[in-house]
């Protein structure tokens, strides 16, 4: 329900659409590319997912904030979305072991948000018109001022964000005594990806986005993991080079989301900007190798060119999206390198695809024999 002050806020889209709603979270102005997430649980995990950097997020679910926020339910150390749009927020929550309410959390993270907006109509608009930049403001109410602010928001197309949000210094996770060592390239890695590998008995070292192969090799990893992250993979030639260098080591390789797109690019398969992306916890994916299907967590606005994959002599398709037939997973022919477009670590979302971490660890173990 409405927060008590009822400060108005405005939302302007690039195509001129303006909504008036009620402010919550921080006051001020924020901009980014608008996108929507259809998940009905796990808002805090979504907000802290680094892949959302630069995005203003619509939550399709009728409510956010009902169960407050909890220190452990995060995917990074801060809120990563640029702004938030919802229908209803709950200023009073119910969860005995929560630490705070959503409002305070957003204020502390300096996130500008707007509610009491017809989010459903807005989602339909984005669905038909495509992703575009937008701005939320509690400061400007007139169109001209809003438009001026909007003009300053950079285009997602061609935008490189990973190096900004990647860890500045390498860090480790898991037991140094573990038999398996995995090097993780951090382009915006989610905490639970690392956790999934640690849970499977690996010692992890996470490297900054621009770490070169020589530095990586010093860790003597048994396998390499390329993380998810925000931005346009086409603007990341440095990362494509790293991936190529890593592939040359012939060690087992696993990529998720942006990591998947980078594996494709390293194999001369182009990526493209999608009309409005896939974001949610209910996307159906079929593993065409096993014939089994899985419900997946997704968060991507770029995709891998399906024609180029089909024509490639180096990679083959392993997973497809059952809704639109898009490429959800590839592997390199004859070697232990694979990647998926979706998020097998989920958080939030179903655990259906966690077997991919087992596959990766299995590949490493095979290699170690």
């Amino acid at each position, binding site marked *: *329900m409405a927060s008590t002050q009822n400060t108005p806020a*405005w939302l302007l*889209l690039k195509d*001129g*659409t*303006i*909504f*008036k*709603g009620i402010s919550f979270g921080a006051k001020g102005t924020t901009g980014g590319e608008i996108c*929507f997430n*259809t*998940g*009905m*649980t*796990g808002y805090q*995990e979504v907000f802290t997912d680094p892949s959302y950097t630069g995005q203003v997020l619509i939550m*399709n*679910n*009728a*409510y956010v904030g*009902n*169960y407050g926020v*909890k220190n452990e*339910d995060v995917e990074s150390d801060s809120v990563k979305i640029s702004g938030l749009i919802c*229908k*209803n927020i*709950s200023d009073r929550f*119910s*969860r*005995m072991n929560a630490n705070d309410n959503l409002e305070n959390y957003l204020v502390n993270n300096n996130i500008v948000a707007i509610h009491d*907006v*017809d*989010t*459903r*109509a*807005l*989602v*339909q*608009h984005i*669905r038909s018109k495509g992703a575009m930049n937008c701005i939320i403001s509690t400061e400007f109410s007139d*169109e001209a001022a809003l438009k001026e602010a909007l003009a300053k928001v950079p285009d997602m197309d061609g935008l490189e964000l990973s190096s900004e949000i990647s860890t500045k210094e390498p860090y480790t996770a898991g037991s140094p005594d573990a038999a398996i060592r995995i090097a993780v390239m951090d382009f915006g890695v989610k905490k639970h990806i690392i956790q999934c590998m640690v849970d499977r008995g690996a010692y992890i070292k996470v490297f900054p986005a621009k770490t070169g192969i020589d530095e990586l090799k010093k860790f003597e990893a048994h396998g390499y993991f390329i993380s998810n992250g925000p931005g346009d993979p086409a603007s990341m030639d440095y990362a494509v080079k790293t991936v190529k260098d890593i592939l040359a080591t012939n060690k087992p390789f696993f990529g998720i989301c942006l990591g998947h797109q980078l594996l494709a690019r390293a194999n001369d398969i182009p990526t493209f900007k999608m009309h409005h992306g896939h974001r*949610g*916890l*209910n*996307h*159906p994916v*079929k593993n065409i190798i096993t*014939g*089994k*299907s899985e*419900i997946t967590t997704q968060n991507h606005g770029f995709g891998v060119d399906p024609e180029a994959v089909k024509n490639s002599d180096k990679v083959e398709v392993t997973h497809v999206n*059952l*809704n*639109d037939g898009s490429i959800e997973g590839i592997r390199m022919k004859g070697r232990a390198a694979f990647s998926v477009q979706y998020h097998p670590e*989920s*958080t*939030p*979302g*179903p*655990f259906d695809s966690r077997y991919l971490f087992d596959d990766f660890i299995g590949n490493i173990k095979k290699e170690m024999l």
Partner: protein
Amino acid sequence: MPRDLSIKSVLIIGSGPIIIGQACEFDYSGSQAARSLREEGIKVILINSNPATIMTDPIMADKVYLLPLTVESLEQILEENQIDAVLPTMGGQTALNLAKEGEELGIWEKHNVRLIGVDIKAIDKAEDRELFRKWMIQLGVPVAEARTANSLLEGKEFAQQIGLPIVIRPSFTLGGSGGGIVYHKEELDGALDRGLTASPMHEVLVERAMMGWKEFELELLRDMNDNVVIICTVENFDPMGIHTGDSITVAPAMTLSDTAYQLMRNTAIMMMRDLGNFAGGCNVQFALNPETEEIIAIEINPRVSRSSALASKATGYPIAKIAAKLSIGYNLDELKNQITQTTSAYFEPALDYVIVKMPRWNFDKFKGADDTLGLQMKSVGEVMAIGRTFPEALQKACQSLENNATGLSYISQQRLRPEEIIDTLKRPTWDRIFRIKEAIAAGVSIKTIRELTQIDRWFLYQIQDLVNFEVKIKAVKHIEKLTYELLFEAKKLGFSDDQIAELLKDSTGEEVYEYRKTMGIRRVYKMVDTCSAEFEAKTPYFYSTFEHNPIAGTVKSNESNLTDKKKIIVLGSGPNRIGQGIEFDYCCTHGLLAIKDCGFEAIMVNCNPETVSTDFDIADKLYFEPVYWEHLWEIIEHEQPDGVIVQLGGQTALKLARRLSEKGVKIIGTSFDDMDIAEDRGRFSDMLKELGIPYPNYGTAYTTDEAIEVAKEVGYPVLVRPSYVLGGQRMRIVINDEELERGVVSLLKHLPGNKILIDHFLDRCQEAEVDAICDGEDVHIMGMMEHIEPAGIHSGDSHALLPVFNLGPLIVDEMADIAKKIALKLNIKGLINIQYAIKDGKVFVIEANPRASRTTPFIAKAYNIPYLNVATKVMMGEAKLKDFTFEHNLEGFAVKEPVFSFNKFPNVNKELGPEMKSTGEAIRFIKNLRDPWFRQLYKERSMHLSK
């Protein structure tokens, strides 16, 4: 795997007569399954003894057997047909138990029939409490501490070990029959005894009561490739301890974190995969400890259920339809999402609205019943409401209940003091949600209410918001001072115009409506699309809400686009209750199909999730809205229909005719004024007098003194009843002034200001009824039914034969003649039902109902004539009776058998009388009157006064 081509014919088992705990949700599932299989070219054979169901209509299956649900009937069907497979998961526990019995007797094997949709060997694991527990422990899923007892002594011993409070759950019973919570030592013996008696195997589970734990339900689908999806997660507003059928439930889950939810999802999937080898639907229930977020498994049902019917309506995902396809071999990834028609059926629906289901009880019918809610289901129906906020959905649900609530506003006659309210909250009853609001308004803290009710504080906060908001509106006092912002907020929170008017105290609901209309505060219609707008949906399933339009741009809030076609709205009958139930769903479904036949756009309005007529592909357009004036009127203003049909939705729909007519909306068929003659006792009697038709002496009164005066004139015994009620509510027969006075006083207490009707009661007369169609020129008698029990028992509670069996040809002609006279005089266009009393060879008319009646579907089934289709076309003026030929193909007689749910109310007097108490009915065909079953029934006819 694509569909199994070796399956060419399937037998679907229905759930039989409606009883508490097993109602028309299974007609909905069965109908969907039948259509789903038939569209695959599979021959569908159906067995069900319930004549009021749409599933047993010839339009739904290739062959229908209206037979008792027994192994003997199954054998007969198997002998007469080549059947490849049987689908027993659509007919509730009744069908599963019957399939299991058939398995034990080896009839499936004998006839080479496969069981599909279920692993029959796994049923016990799900149904037997002790096996379930052992299985869970083996799987590593936590369960409540419990022991199985087969005797009173064992039960007491275990109760002592576990410690009170405990839950007693009898094995193999339906809707929690015989179960209960024991808080105090002195209740233990009685509760154990009840439980052991209720269980067919004299077995109960003595279980630790998980008081204060929250309750959740997941609806799952699984295919032969072991793919599993969760279609819906439902959160119970009422915590553990109240049967989910008696709980207010909410979807999606409102207070569930992703970590807690994924734990439930993983556990549920593991349980379903481990429950034998089958493809189909399944329901799993969990309790969650709000302090630690640990969960325990409560139960698993390997079939479609009341909850899956609700989940289908709540998400748009047709669970029964897809489950049927999975049972014949399809995998989920091979099927399309039925709503978008472009994306995959293998996905998990996302909602961008809030669903509230509220049960509807009928305690007024069961005097002396314990109305405390608990483990045993007691409600007779339910409503579902959809809104974009929880308060909106909650208040819409209240508006749907049709019990005079204008929202969450209903406050009983007696105003309670805070201490008294606190006392009432301790004991969960049907009106607890209203009491909670009263308590908050009286200043009781959320903390205290939470302690007393264990209801999650998030829900309590929402109710508190409503209370606070009411204070704001009250303070405004004058309608013209209501600001746009305040009024919009009120509508967003689901306040009805009537409710706002009640708070302002200076205006009517109508005035509030007109006022907000000038401000541009109007309903918009949003679609239920399974995917929260991610994909374009093709199914016109709508609900209303209030949304702000953008300040600039072309974004459109309203999704209900208008067509150029001529449109007709069919009004449904709201929640099921005793006296008005599934039969009207049957009528509405046929009405919609007939409207479509005539090339009109058929629009359905109803709020009952258990109905076939609100299925996503029956009407051209569905508004899932309360059958409440305000909501209906805005639909009419939006759609501008060519007319509204009120004849098919029982008394609920009929009651709206006056206001529709005053507003100049065309009532399809019989005009409002003519219907009013039939409904208004005085006008009706004047008409009968004019036509020279006898009727029992009668009079009306507003006070006890007047009543005694009237009774003297008409002569005792007299029948006393209120006007404008359903199913003979509060009707009684009295023989002297003293009894009369008592009756009138009690009646006026409950219905102050009501006009009381007093009829001379024709003692020892015979009763009969006629259903007819009239097109204004001709009258066709659809059927004539004679009651077996003597007069004094409500027609809904009596056995009846079609055609009459004991009345002479002169009487029959007389009844037909009277029916024709009345129908023509009332200018009936469509349906009419007339009730007669026959005494000493003289035919009296008791009442006439200018609408579809409880017996209309029965007659259509027995004679196998699509009467509702004909009646609808006649109503619309699209056809005349002379366009049809009717042939009554019935060898022998069809007997209507009432079915009761008294076992849910152990302390209730089972005596029958003028007030209807049966919850369902069965049909039975007899070749002649020498039939042994019938002869026994006939012999005992007078004993049925006490069931």
